[in-house]
């Protein structure tokens, strides 16, 4: 199992920026991407392992699909100008853009009908993730210079048709995940007030690198479906069970101001300028409930409306637990200590509308989708760590069948509501985000984002 996951990593499975609320990424599979992921009721292909395993019973024979999403994120942050309390200088910060311009997110899935009532599936995909990089000298550097949360799901699934048009299905999700977070630090923040040093320069600055992984977490996806006798109406529902990722790894904090660390016998344990420690970061994956209804509007046209509910309220706090909490300086309080970042995310709904037609030939299918998606993050808890906001998504897709092959293409663009965080007494960062200390001015500013997604897929059907 572990080897399979490693192979999957080598194949290039990467996370993308979450663009369906928080860091949830439901655009999985070529057809689904063209339909705005509105496929919970009608999605009889290998990606059903993720969207609704019950739909696998509708997939004929043996099918295999390989897809790649190319996510083109664009995130720009303009930090609000302020006056440096130390120097009296007016600080104006240049806008910063994310540095990673393309993120590849592969999907690989297969399904096989064992008998008229039973089908199985197997898929590898990344339904949760976030990858963003920013300049190491940018105005956002104390919050983030790089973040990469990756989840890789390996999901065997089984589905069974029941009398009366009903079907049920389930997949077991074996999850590998890892997390990398990089920030710039500043020695005055260790014992002092970050607000006194809103733009630290030179030797005050260092780097903080956190990296951890969770080799195995188990979740499940349960699904059910119903189709009318004539097959014109279908209803589907599925639930992804929640889980907690426990990313265990190391922290490396470097800064010229850090003292060497000695034991009681004056043996040097760690050199000056750097401190390493073990960390554990716990990240909840939310419960996701999906309900969809589809209708065939004639022989070659299909419409589906889905509603997703995501219990993001399970993500109340991000905690990074340092194992030894080593001393940084020989002065009280100057040590590594657990960091608590308040999230207080909210449960969210999203609505997904998909339209599919084959106007000229059954070999050619055209698709379109519309997505309205709430963000779980209010202004109070917004930061560039997860620059999510309410979104409107438009998708277009097409597929062309050539023999046993199905070539698919989809494009999507997500328009993201701007975030304008103004200075207030209780804004983000006011309850302690940089080393648990209030640092609101680091969060004040305007964030503009948008995402385009290109999906290429090839499917083979027996």
């Amino acid at each position, binding site marked *: 199992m572990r080897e399979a996951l490693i192979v999957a990593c080598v194949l290039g499975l990467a996370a993308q920026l979450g663009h369906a609320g928080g860091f949830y990424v439901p655009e999985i599979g070529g057809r689904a991407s063209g339909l705005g992921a509105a496929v919970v009721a009608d999605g009889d292909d290998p990606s059903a392992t993720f969207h609704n395993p019950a739909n696998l019973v509708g997939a004929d024979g043996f099918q295999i699909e390989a897809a790649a999403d190319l996510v083109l994120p664009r995130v720009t942050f303009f930090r609000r100008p302020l006056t440096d309390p130390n120097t009296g200088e007016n600080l104006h910060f240049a806008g910063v853009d994310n540095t990673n311009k393309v993120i590849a997110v592969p999907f690989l899935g297969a399904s096989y009908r064992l008998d008229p009532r039973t089908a199985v599936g197997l898929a590898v995909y990344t339904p949760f993730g976030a990858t963003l990089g920013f300049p190491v000298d940018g105005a956002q550097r104390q919050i983030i210079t790089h973040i990469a949360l990756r989840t890789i799901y390996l999901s065997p699934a089984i589905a069974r048709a029941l009398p009366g048009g009903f079907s049920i299905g389930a997949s077991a999700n074996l999850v590998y995940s890892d997390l990398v977070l990089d920030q710039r630090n500043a020695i005055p923040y260790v014992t002092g007030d970050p607000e006194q040093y809103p733009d630290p320069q030179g030797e005050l600055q260092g780097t903080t690198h956190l990296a951890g992984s969770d080799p195995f977490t188990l979740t499940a996806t349960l699904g059910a479906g119903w189709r009318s006798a004539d097959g014109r109406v279908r209803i589907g529902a599925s639930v992804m069970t929640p889980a907690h990722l426990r990313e265990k790894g190391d922290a490396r904090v470097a800064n010229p101001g850090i003292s060497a660390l*000695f034991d009681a016998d004056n043996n040097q344990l760690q050199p000056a300028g750097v401190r390493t420690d073990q960390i554990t970061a716990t990240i909840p994956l939310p419960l996701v409930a999906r309900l969809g209804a589809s209708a065939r509007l004639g022989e070659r046209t299909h419409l589906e409306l889905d509603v997703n509910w995501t219990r993001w309220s399970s993500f109340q706090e991000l905690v990074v637990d340092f194992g030894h909490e080593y001393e940084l300086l*020989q002065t*009280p309080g100057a040590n590594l200590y657990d960091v608590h970042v308040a999230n207080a995310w909210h449960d969210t709904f999203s609505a997904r509308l998909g339209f599919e037609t084959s106007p000229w030939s059954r070999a050619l299918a055209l698709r379109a989708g519309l997505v*309205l998606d709430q963000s779980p993050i209010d202004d109070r808890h917004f930061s560039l760590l997860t620059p999510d906001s309410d979104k409107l998504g438009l998708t277009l897709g097409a597929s062309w069948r050539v023999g046993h092959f199905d070539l698919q293409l989809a494009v999507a663009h997500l328009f993201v509501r701007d975030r304008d965080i103004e200075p207030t007494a209780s804004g983000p960062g006011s309850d302690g985000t940089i080393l648990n200390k209030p640092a609101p001015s680091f969060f004040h500013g305007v964030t503009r984002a948008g995402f385009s997604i290109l999906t290429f897929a090839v499917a083979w059907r027996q």
Partner: protein
Amino acid sequence: MYRSLILAVVLAACSSNKDPFAAGIDASGSGSGSGGDGGAIDAPSAPHACVAAPKRIVVLGDSITACSVIGGPQNADCVSKQFADYVIAHYGPGATYENHAVGGAVMADIAGQLAGVSAAQGPTLVMLFIGGNDLAPYIFKSDAEAMTAWTGTIEPALQSVYNAMFTTLADASKFPGGATVVMNTQYNPFDDCAAGPYNVSLAKSAILAEFNAKIAEISAAHATASIVVDQHTKFLGHGHCYQQATCPHYLANAAPYMQDLIHANAAGNAILSGVDNAGADRLYRDCTH
């Protein structure tokens, strides 16, 4: 709700990435706080009354005298070791060296360190370097917080801690031969200069000056049992701003004395011990009978 969302995102999609803060902000120019004259004190240079040659040297204090980041109290570069060696060589042959300093110690810990000193015959020379960890938490906080801490907490503690120390040292059952204290003032790692990158305000340098003046005042009040030595002046121009030509104590080609943010390097320890050694000279050689 979604109608407004659609409107918002469409508007957002039509907007450019023009910097919304291009016009900047109103300059308020709050300045860097009130200036200070630095932390130097007028250390008494008049000869001290001679005291009996020490039978033991007791070091109290924090990481500076514990030499926590420079190899420990027995390391040849350690200020305390150099001081003890100097005193033993010149004024107290056969004297013992006890280092009770602890890294991270604050003023309130001195009583505990003294409690760990066992009773012994003969005169005791105490070398004390404390207070840096009481001041350090405010180096990178606002001037207002630093001043509040100084007037509300640190200064009163300074007086009471030293009073308690002198009471203990006067206890003939524990120090039957008497004890004399070499009281170190604090050096300023930032050279009494508000230059970057640390931008430690002159107001904080002024607080340090008050701290050092208070040390001198307390020593003067216990003149027969102590002397004060000025570590502050010797360090000026050799701290973190030693290459800042705009700083008032800038010296061309000055050697740096800092090892990390708050601790002296080997060269700095040599300077510290030199100042302490001069204090010993005043007690034992250049003294008045």
